[in-house]
Structure formats: structure tokens, C-alpha cells
């Protein structure tokens, strides 16, 4: 413990809001995201309470519609998309590649301010009376029929989009230009590869969303005929534009999770990731092919049958690199020396839940079944397995893994394992019944439903209460560890990776001297033993 670290560098509050330190900006993002996760979670809780019975008994139909819209908008744009990239990515990327900071530190701070501004505008729309279009904002409902604060909310999303673009840009330049001497592309940890792929999507796809939202607002406010057929527009044009962004955005929401899981599995199996190059290129293959599947959201919309055939085909193709990753993670465990610390439990949970999400994605890519299942709870269950079972689980795993590095404190291991196991069970209990509901034909976004669907809804709501408690647990014990946790050594897990070669927490400029890399990543044959603290 020599000298100051990035936390003790300057104690004034103002120093946090003017900081250009990527580590502090990561903390700012983290605090902001916890806030949004909480708001989105409250909406989800109210939704599950309402759905415990078939009738309307807690909220009105209009309120219910606002709740699921708020849940979707907040969770997608203000939690999932920035989650791993802007917190763990922001903190870890420069450390992992041996850099002092991101390439554009001030741009990094600006993107946080843009994010806060966008979030505030969206929250303003919500507290003014909300928005009832669903997060998908389908026209012409959103442009001419909805009597809610669509334009305001859309403006908030538009602003937050620039935060995404700038973050993506910052990562791309950083990964290209600021790698430590000797750190060639194939020596990069796979977390960097997946964040690179994520950044490419952020930069290429987000502008399309921005344009789409501008067009939507132009029609809503000024009656410019773009999407409403009564004034010469085409409603399906909106869906094409929206999904051209929003399908790649799904990969923004899962690639970083896959990246984290690579680090966790390698560290706790104490082995190099099996098929490193295949996993690395699989990330980029997903990013590229992910741009060519948007029409699978529109199989029953009236798009041509030929288009549906092509999009179905491409959707199966994009599943191949995901399958490659799952097989490689499993193969990595073979002949490992596996330890079951909490981060590893999250990583194993990720593999199981992501695989279920991925396999049910194949169900939905399958044309004849999608005709039946689209817009039912089957879809709801599927994407929650990917986004919550996948991304959020990986996020918690990464958070525990790097917690000692970020805070300089160890978290309580037994509590953390208990929470990981509870999250796994709570999650499955919440969302598996929704597959059954969808297969039985219950449509999504239903405030009231036919009585025969109740049993599965009750199970789902029961699971949601377990899940809510499981998600709250880490907030308590992690907060506790900030003050009472044992001091973390520089490398508690005996992990490879440059971020573990500096002190915990790292100094303001990350490294006391410039690290140099002369070997492959994940060289666990020569890594130090894990330390029991």
C-alpha cells in the first residue's frame, strides 16, 4: 500500500464530476445504472404482481401499459446496453491492455453526462405521465394514436444514443492504439475482443436508431407522412428501421457478457480458453451477421415470404458462432483445476441460461413455429433468458470477479455464493413458466388474461419475488464489504491479465511502470496460486 490510489487521489466531491479517470467514470456509470436497474425492477415487480391473477386488480390497463413500456425502455437503453461496457469495460479495458486511460478521457466523461441527460429526459417523460407504446414504439400507434409522452421519452433515448456511439468510438480507438508493447491482437484477453465487436455495433447501428426516432418525432409532431398510411407512409418501414438497430442491439446486450464469462472460466478452470481464436472471431462473426437478421421480427407482419425465408436462414447462421462459444467454454473445463468461487458460479449459470435462451432462439427462427409463438410469452421468456439469464448473470459474475480490483476489498464469499445460487433458481422459476405460457398461446403485453393461464403466471410471479430478493442481496453485502471487507491483494484469484499486475485499487494512472507483454493470454500454467484472504 504505497501512495494514493484512484479513490484516495482527491476527496472532494467536485473531483468526481470533473474527473477524466476512466475508473472514476466507471464508478459514476455504476451508480447511475444501479438507480435505473432499481426503477426498471420496480416496474417489473408491479407487472408480476398484477399478473398473479387473471383479472385487473392492482393497476388499470393504461397504467399497466405504461409499466411494461417503462420497464422495457429503462432496462434496454438505460441498463443493459451500457451495463458491462460502460462500467466493467470502462474500468477494466485500459487496465487489461496496459494503458493509462481510454483514448479520449474527456469524451468518456462527456458520454456519461449525455447518458445522464438522456436518462433524465426519459425519467421526466415517465413522471409526467409515462409512455404507453411498448419499448418497440411501433407506428402508427406511437405517432398518431398514443396520448402519452412519446416525443419526450424518444428524445431521451435519442440523447442516450450519442453516449453509446461515443463509448463505442472510444473503445475502438483505445483497443487499436493504446495496447501495451508486445500485446498483439491474439494476445488480447477475449473480453477485449468481445467489447471490440460490441463497439463496432454501437458505432454502426445506433445512428440508425437516432434517424428512426427523428422520423417518428417528425410524424408525431409535424404530421410528416412517413409511417402512417393515411398520410402516405408505411408502418412496416418503421419496423425495418427499428429492428435494423434493435436486433444488433441484442448482441450489444450479450457480447460483453460472453466476454466476461471467458475471463471467469479461464481463471477458475485455470486453463487457457479452448479454441481461443475461434472464440475471438466468433464475436466478430456475431457482430457482422447480426446486422442481417432483423426481418425475423417480422415473419407475420406481411413482409414477403421470400424475405422471411432469407431472414430465417440468416438467423440460423448467426446462431453458429454462439454455439461455437458454448462448446469451447465446456471444452475449457476439461482437465481444468476448477474452483467454485462466486464468479465461477455465475459463469456456469450463464452457460446454462444462455444455452436455453439460444436454443429457444432457434425455435423462434424456425418459420412455422414463429408464426405461432411470436408476440407470445415464449418470446418474452426467450429474450429474458438471453438478457437477464445471460447478460445480467455475467454482469454479476464480472462485478464479483473485479470487485477486489475496483474497491480494494474482498466481498464475503459465502454470501456471494448463496446469492448466485438463489439468482439461478429465482430466475428459472420466474421465466421458465413463461415458455409454457407462450407455448399455450398467451400473447404478451396482456394486462388481463384467460383463467387457464393462471397457474403458470402464479409460478412466474412467485419466482420473481425470489429473484428480487436475490438481486437485492449483493447490494447489502457488497456495500458491507466496502467498509468491513478484508483488504484485497493485487491478485487475489491468481489470475493472468495485466489488470491484476497493479495494486488493488489501482493508482490514478493505473501502472507504476509501463507493463510489457511477451506471451499468450491465459497462461495459467505459470500464473500465481490464488490467495485465500
Amino acid at each position: 500500500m504505497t501512495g494514493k490510489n484512484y479513490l484516495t487521489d482527491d476527496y472532494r466531491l467536485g473531483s468526481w464530476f470533473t474527473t477524466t479517470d476512466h475508473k472514476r467514470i466507471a464508478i459514476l456509470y455504476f451508480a447511475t445504472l444501479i438507480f435505473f436497474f432499481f426503477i426498471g425492477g420496480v416496474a417489473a415487480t408491479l407487472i408480476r404482481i398484477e399478473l398473479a391473477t387473471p383479472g385487473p386488480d392492482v393497476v388499470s390497463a393504461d397504467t399497466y401499459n405504461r409499466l411494461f413500456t417503462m420497464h422495457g425502455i429503462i432496462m434496454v437503453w438505460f441498463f443493459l446496453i451500457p451495463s458491462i461496457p460502460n462500467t466493467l469495460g470502462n474500468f477494466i479495458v485500459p487496465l487489461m491492455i496496459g494503458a493509462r486511460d481510454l483514448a479520449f478521457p474527456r469524451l468518456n466523461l462527456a458520454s456519461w453526462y449525455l447518458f445522464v441527460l438522456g436518462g433524465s429526459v426519459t425519467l421526466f417523460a415517465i413522471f409526467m405521465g409515462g409512455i404507453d407504446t411498448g419499448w418497440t414504439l411501433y407506428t402508427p400507434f406511437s405517432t398518431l394514436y398514443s396520448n402519452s409522452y412519446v416525443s419526450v421519452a424518444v428524445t431521451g433515448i435519442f440523447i442516450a444514443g450519442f453516449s453509446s456511439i461515443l463509448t463505442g468510438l472510444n473503445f475502438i480507438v483505445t483497443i487499436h492504439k493504446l495496447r501495451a508493447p508486445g500485446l498483439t491482437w491474439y494476445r488480447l484477453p477475449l473480453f477485449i475482443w468481445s467489447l471490440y465487436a460490441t463497439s463496432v455495433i454501437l458505432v454502426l447501428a445506433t445512428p440508425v436508431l437516432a434517424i428512426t426516432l427523428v422520423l417518428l418525432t417528425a410524424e408525431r409532431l409535424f404530421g410528416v407522412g412517413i409511417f402512417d398510411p393515411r398520410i402516405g407512409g408505411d408502418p412496416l418501414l418503421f419496423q425495418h428501421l427499428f429492428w435494423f438497430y434493435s436486433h444488433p442491439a441484442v448482441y450489444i446486450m450479450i457480447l460483453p457478457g460472453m466476454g466476461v464469462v471467458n475471463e471467469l472460466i479461464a481463471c477458475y478452470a485455470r486453463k487457457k480458453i479452448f479454441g481461443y481464436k475461434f472464440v475471438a472471431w466468433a464475436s466478430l462473426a456475431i457482430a457482422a451477421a447480426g446486422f442481417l437478421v432483423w426481418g425475423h421480427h417480422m415473419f407475420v407482419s406481411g413482409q414477403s415470404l421470400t424475405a422471411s425465408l432469407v431472414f430465417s436462414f440468416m438467423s440460423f447462421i448467426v446462431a453458429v458462432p454462439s454455439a461455437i462459444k458454448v462448446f469451447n467454454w465446456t471444452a475449457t473445463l476439461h482437465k481444468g483445476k476448477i474452483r467454485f468461487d462466486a464468479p465461477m458460479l455465475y459463469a456456469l449459470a450463464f452457460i446454462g441460461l444462455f444455452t436455453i435462451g439460444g436454443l429457444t432462439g432457434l425455435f423462434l427462427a424456425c418459420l412455422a413455429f414463429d408464426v405461432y409463438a411470436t408476440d407470445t410469452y415464449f418470446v418474452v421468456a426467450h429474450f429474458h433468458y438471453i438478457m437477464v439469464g445471460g447478460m445480467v448473470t455475467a454482469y454479476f459474475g464480472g462485478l464479483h470477479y473485479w470487485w477486489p480490483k475496483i474497491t480494494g476489498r474482498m466481498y464475503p464469499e459465502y454470501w456471494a455464493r448463496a446469492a448466485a445460487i438463489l439468482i439461478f433458481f429465482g430466475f428459472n422459476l420466474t421465466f421458465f413458466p413463461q415458455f409454457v405460457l407462450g407455448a399455450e398461446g398467451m400473447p404478451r403485453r396482456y394486462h388481463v388474461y384467460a383463467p387457464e393461464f393462471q397457474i403458470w403466471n402464479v409460478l412466474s410471479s412467485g419466482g420473481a419475488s425470489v429473484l428480487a430478493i436475490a438481486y437485492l442481496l449483493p447490494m447489502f453485502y457488497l456495500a458491507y464489504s466496502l467498509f468491513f471487507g478484508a483488504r484485497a491483494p493485487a491478485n487475489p484469484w491468481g489470475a493472468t491479465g495485466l489488470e491484476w499486475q497493479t495494486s488493488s485499487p489501482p493508482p490514478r494512472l493505473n501502472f507504476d511502470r509501463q507493463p510489457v507483454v511477451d506471451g499468450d493470454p491465459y497462461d495459467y500454467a505459470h500464473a500465481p496460486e490464488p490467495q485465500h484472504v
Partner: protein
Amino acid sequence: MWRQWIPFWHEGVSPYGGDVDLLFRGLLVASTLVLGLLLFLILLFCIRYRAGNDVDRENHEAKSWHWEIGWTAASLVAFLGLFAWGAAIFLKIYQTPADDLSVFVVAQQWMWKVQHPGGQAEINALHMPINRPVNLVMASQDVIHSFFIPALRLKHDVVPGRYQSIEIEAMRPGHYHLFCAEYCGTDHARMLGEVVAMRPADYAAWLAQQAPSSSLAQQGSALFRQLGCSGCHEGSSSIHAPRLEGLYGKPVPLSDGSTVIADDKYLRDSILLPRSQVAAGYQPVMPSFEGRIDEAQLLQLVAYIKSLATVKP
């Protein structure tokens, strides 16, 4: 009782319903096998290679690309198989409607309005005969809705500004749920109906019992006069407008040199946007009826013009 909680326990009642059910079961079996294999391997490795367990960890560095090529190829082949299976049934579901019995459906916030060719109209219900394909012509009055009958394993969005034609057929009599599956505003969850599939004799009795004063085409004919269409399109009008007798289903030469078939969509567009496709040899003088008539009336006009198909001009 407990069987109602098992998905797809009730077979789909459409001609391809069994195919969709089989596809679902096939997907279930395939994914259960893959998931089971993965979980088995993960569990096996986690137990056998747990830290502290003294086993052989000698690294035989098997050429990793053998495995990579193996499971990539296996995934690809399996996925392409599933693609082809799903696509084949899909094409069967949306085969071009045989123009048999046409029923018209208008979706609007938050109800389904159904009109039968005989003039029978119903709300949130659709009576149909079993074992006979019914061609549904669907239109939306306002936002996007989606016509979803789980028992028929069928769904199609109803997008404003266009007609969607789908063919439905039920093979067993019964009452089946009709849901709106595309979020459409406040009472989306209450935009429900039922499809009543009846034996042909019962259906005929139902049609007779509903005993409308006039058929859909007759209603259209009355509207045709009321809106003043007949002033130009009929008899010895001084205004030079195309005659509509014998028009339906025939090719129409347009002023820009192209030709279109006079189908439902063409008629609809010609009433709402008369200047977009002007028949060759005529002046674009017809006013638009956009905003003056609703989708249900439009369908009556189309039915009327359709009924003139066999009349000699």
C-alpha cells in the same frame, strides 16, 4: 384437468396444425438432447476436475481445430435441417388463398368486426364451417393489430393501409380463442374474440338464422349510390369514367403503360388514392374517399364491385 396445463396437448385443429405440433416436439427433443449433453459434460468436468481432486490432468493438447470443425459443422447441418423443416410448413401455412369462401375482417381499437358475404355481420366472433378453406380478407381501421388463433397455429398482423389475405381452415367443430397479438393500446388485452367452427349444416343454419336484410354486395351497392359513385361509373354518365362491370380479376392497363390486376388491393387503392394508378384513357378526375369511408364500408364497396365481375358491361 391437468392436461390443459401442458402446452400443445390439444392438437392444432388446422390442416397443418399437426405439422406445427410435430415441429415443436422435434425442436423440444433436439434441444433437450443438446442441453442434456452440455449439462452432463459440465457436471462431469466440474466434479472430476475440481481443484483438489487428484486426477490425470496431463495435457494431450489434442489438435483443437478438429473439435472446432466438428462441432461447427454439426451445428450448421442441424440448423439448416431445422430451417428447411420450418420453412416447408411455413409455405404451407401461407399458401395463396384459394378464392373459395371469403370473409372480411376489420380490426380496430379494440374489437374485431367480421362481415360475411351474405351480409351477416358479427363482432368479436367468427363463425366458419369446418373442413372448408375460408379466405380472410383483413384490414385495420387504425393501428397494427394481429389476428391470432392459437388452436389453428396461425397468426397474421393486420396492418393499416393494406389488405392481408390468409386462408384458415378448422377440422374440428369447437369454440377457439381469437387474440390480438400485436400491442394496440389501452384495451389490447381485451381485444378478444372466438372462432366458432361448425359442421356445414349448423353453419348453414346459423347463416340463415342471422338473416340479414341484404348481402354484403347489396350493402355495397346502396353505398355506391349514396356516395355518388354511380353518377360517373354507371349508365350513361356524361363524365368519362371506367365502367366497373366485369372489371374484377381482369388486367387493367394504366396511363403510365403498366398493367395491374383489378384485385381487392387495387380497388381499395383506387377508391382511397385514385390518382396513384389511373386507368389508361381516363382523366384523373376522381376525388379521394380517404377519411370519408371506413374500412368496413370499403369492404362493402369492394364486395359490390366484385359481384359485378360476371355482369356483361
